[in-house]
């Protein structure tokens, strides 16, 4: 028997239906989401990122951080995301409107980073962690990103102000210092900008925790 035309129609219709359902409709529903302005405090959320942090987001993409780190907090009572302190509320569509590439991630070889800027505000910690994760998190399997740093001789003016404070086996040879490259600065700026805990009507932060 020959199903030719039926087959062609079916092939087209089936894929078209899911494209309409899972791509076109969500695009209509969420593609134009904007910032939310709080009526009481006039606070705008989510705030746009600095240029430095936007550059850092490109390094986050290029270095493939997304393959081990998620950027999404699941709702309370579903998984332990909130109990672990990864966020004060679940993340919603509006949290991601400024992301050029949305990197929700599907794997938690490392912890979630949705609010890492809030959970770990110390820039020095981020630099040392990127240089070699064993310094700040012994037992971690995150690869060292020493290629984002330069080891150079200490000049006559003494140690550079942005040189990493490294001790013990991690310290560079005597007379040398470890300086972050431009990329490391931008990446840390991005990581420190990661905060998704603004109060939103669709995802309110619990009052006692928000204070």
């Amino acid at each position, binding site marked *: *028997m020959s199903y030719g035309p039926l087959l062609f129609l079916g092939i087209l219709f089936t894929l078209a*239906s899911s494209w309409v359902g899972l791509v*076109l409709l969500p695009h209509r529903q969420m593609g134009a989401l904007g910032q939310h302005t709080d009526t009481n405090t006039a606070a705008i959320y989510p705030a746009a990122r600095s240029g430095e942090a936007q550059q850092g987001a490109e390094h986050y993409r290029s270095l493939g951080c997304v393959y081990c780190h998620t950027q999404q907090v699941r709702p309370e009572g579903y998984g332990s995301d909130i109990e672990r302190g990864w966020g004060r509320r679940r993340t919603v569509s509006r949290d991601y409107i400024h992301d050029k590439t949305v990197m929700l991630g599907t794997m938690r070889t490392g912890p979630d980073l949705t609010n890492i800027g809030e959970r770990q505000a110390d820039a020095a910690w981020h630099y040392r962690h990127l240089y070699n994760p064993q310094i700040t998190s012994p037992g971690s399997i995150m690869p060292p990103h020493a290629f984002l740093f330069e080891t150079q001789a200490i000049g006559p003016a003494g140690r550079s102000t942005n040189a990493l404070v490294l001790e013990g086996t991690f310290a560079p040879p005597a007379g040398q210092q470890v300086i972050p490259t431009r990329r490391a600065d931008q990446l840390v700026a991005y990581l420190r900008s990661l905060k998704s805990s603004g109060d939103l009507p669709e995802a309110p932060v619990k009052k006692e925790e928000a204070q």
Partner: protein
Amino acid sequence: MSVIAFILLGSVVLLPAAGLLALRWATSTGQFRCPDKAALLPFDEVEPVGMETDCILGGNRR
């Protein structure tokens, strides 16, 4: 929202309608007659049903 409603309603009506038309076309042109014959399509006179192909292991080659 009106666009979404339009697409949803349109597809709700059009998709089953197209399905029904295709089904009518298929039955009226005899597409469903003896489908089991199609199961014989991989076979022919050189390699008929009942003939095993590709038996190469466990024999006494080499």
